[in-house]
């Protein structure tokens, strides 16, 4: 090691100043953009007291809205995680023509506005749409009904599991899987006992993001659902209506519920992960 010649200024104090400024910027950014709005919602939601929360939760249209949001979230999470893992395995393990294109398409939902996603669904499944005659003949209504709401939500939530799992798979490599095969494990046993445990944190994180995104979706769902109160109105759509109809209090309570759910989900997974990795060390 050669010694660095002393600089004319005081590098130590300047270093500290720069670091302090960066920390302050990060803190202000997070506080203003994330914590402040959240605190605002908490404040307004709880302003009228806990009793108001009870009556809000007992309103039939709000209950139905939560129920719809829950169904959409569950179906979305199942579909995006099952297919997400399959797509991630293909992207990480196989080489084929057009792989780069598929990989780029996976990110498409992040780039396209949800409103446009909703419009595309209406164009495909709505009156005069390409697929409408087929489903009409089966007596299945897609647009202005649950199927299209689930469909657009899945579309929007596609990237999360894939983007979380692909890098984990790439880092993992294939040697452990090959070792499992030589020990007699079938492909399914290998996936369940070797691959899945190794990708589980990436997958869970992807699922959490997928779930959070699906309960928060509003634009696409608004366009395809028609937002019929008590029928195709999700929790987020209810919030929109609540503010339209000067029911701010209920709106804040529902918003807080959704936000709390997502935050608890993410923090819960992070905590589990830390506890588990600490045990494994």
């Amino acid at each position, binding site marked *: 090691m050669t010694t660095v010649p002393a600089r004319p200024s005081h590098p130590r104090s300047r270093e500290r100043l720069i670091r302090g400024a960066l920390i302050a910027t990060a803190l202000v950014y997070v506080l203003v953009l994330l914590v402040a709005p959240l605190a605002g919602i908490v404040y307004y939601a709880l302003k009228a007291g806990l009793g108001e929360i009870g009556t809000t939760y007992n309103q039939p249209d709000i209950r139905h809205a939560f129920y719809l949001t829950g169904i959409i979230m569950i179906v979305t999470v199942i579909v995006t995680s099952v297919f997400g893992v399959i797509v991630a395995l293909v992207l990480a393990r196989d080489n084929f023509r057009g792989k780069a294109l598929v990989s780029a398409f996976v990110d498409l939902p992040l780039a396209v506005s949800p409103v446009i996603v909703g419009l595309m669904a209406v164009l495909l499944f709505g009156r005069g749409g390409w697929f409408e005659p087929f489903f009409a003949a089966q007596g299945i209504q897609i647009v202005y009904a649950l199927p299209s709401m689930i469909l657009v939500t899945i579309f929007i939530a596609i990237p999360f599991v894939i983007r979380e799992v692909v890098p984990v798979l790439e880092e993992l490599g294939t040697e452990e899987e090959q*070792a499992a095969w030589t020990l007699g494990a*079938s492909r399914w046993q290998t996936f369940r006992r070797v691959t899945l445990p190794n990708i589980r944190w990436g997958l869970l994180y992807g699922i959490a993001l997928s779930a959070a995104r699906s309960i928060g979706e509003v634009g696409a769902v608004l366009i395809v659902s028609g937002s019929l109160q008590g029928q195709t109105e999700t929790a987020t759509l209810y919030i929109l209506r609540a503010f339209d109809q000067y029911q701010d209090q209920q709106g804040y309570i529902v918003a807080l519920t959704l936000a709390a759910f997502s935050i608890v989900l993410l923090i819960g997974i992070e905590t589990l992960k830390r506890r588990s990795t600490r045990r494994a060390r």
Partner: protein
Amino acid sequence: MAGATIKVQGLTKSFGSFRAVDDVSFEAAEGTITALLGPSGSGKSTVLRMIAGLEQPDTGSVWVAGEELTGASVQDRRLGFVFQHYALFRHMTVRRNVAFGLSVRRVDKAAQRERVDELLELVGLAPFGDRYPDQLSGGQRQRVALARALAPRPSVLLLDEPFGALDARVRQELRGWLDHLHRELGVTSLFVTHDQEEALELANEIVVMNHGKVEQVGSADDIYNRPAAPFVAAFVGSSNVLKGVVWERHVHFGHSIVAGAHAIPDGEEAVAYIRPHDVQITEDPGERSFPVAVERRIDMGWTSKLHLRLEDGQPLVAQLPNEEINGVAAGQNLFANLRNPKVFPRSRADEAAPASDEAVPVAGESSSVGG
């Protein structure tokens, strides 16, 4: 645990336009240790992976215990495989790693426990059963990998550069330990290595590969003392390469000659391979010796390397015990006599250029001179 014979016939495999393995045939007898020795890129690992079923050959067949396995799945072959980088299941304890091959075959729990205990005892890791792989040293991990591969009682054990990722001391230790283990279990073992010393020490039989082809199959003695091809002479035991012209069964270079050019016609160019410890240094000229200049002496403890130069300018490296070359120093003009030269026609020697330059033990550069 009885062993089984491994036989491969005409194995060929190309990756794109690159022929990685070209018509490879050999047999590993029941209960023996066989080494697949060659430089990196010589196709030896691909052969091993084809035997295991991890790669499919383009043509050729694989037989174990008289049964053809060429089309069988990896799972159905039931061969033990040890990977260079261990490939332990990182989310499982040592015990669960070792038990894996038993539990996927639904062996009952009590029998699993018994077998795992037995193997952990065998590999000397009984106290480490509840650790995770990242809590073990490299040598310990490789022993876990071995125990895991042996747990389902395979008749054949395939090892892909098993000690390649370990440091020299641990490698030496594991080598002795594997030899011992093999004596105890008698499972037919086939291992891939680029380390000639490892192959010479461990294997009953060595298959030397280069450019996807088998150059020679034989015992350590055959390979070392009777190389069948210029590549084998150059690769096994680091060799000096001297080029000259044949006249009356001797290779002539300048005023120097070596014997051994038996089947080569007069006037043809030839190459003689001479091991550094087969160079004899004398102060006085003898019947067969010729003058050399000492350019450099490197003392390596109980031996020294002498960098010599022949009259016609070709370099020659000798490595000899210090007690034999007391007083020899750079700048002296002495005489050399070359024993055990391996002579091949120049045309064959040129073909034998190894697959990758990195793995050729250039005389005087290799760490394992003299085997």
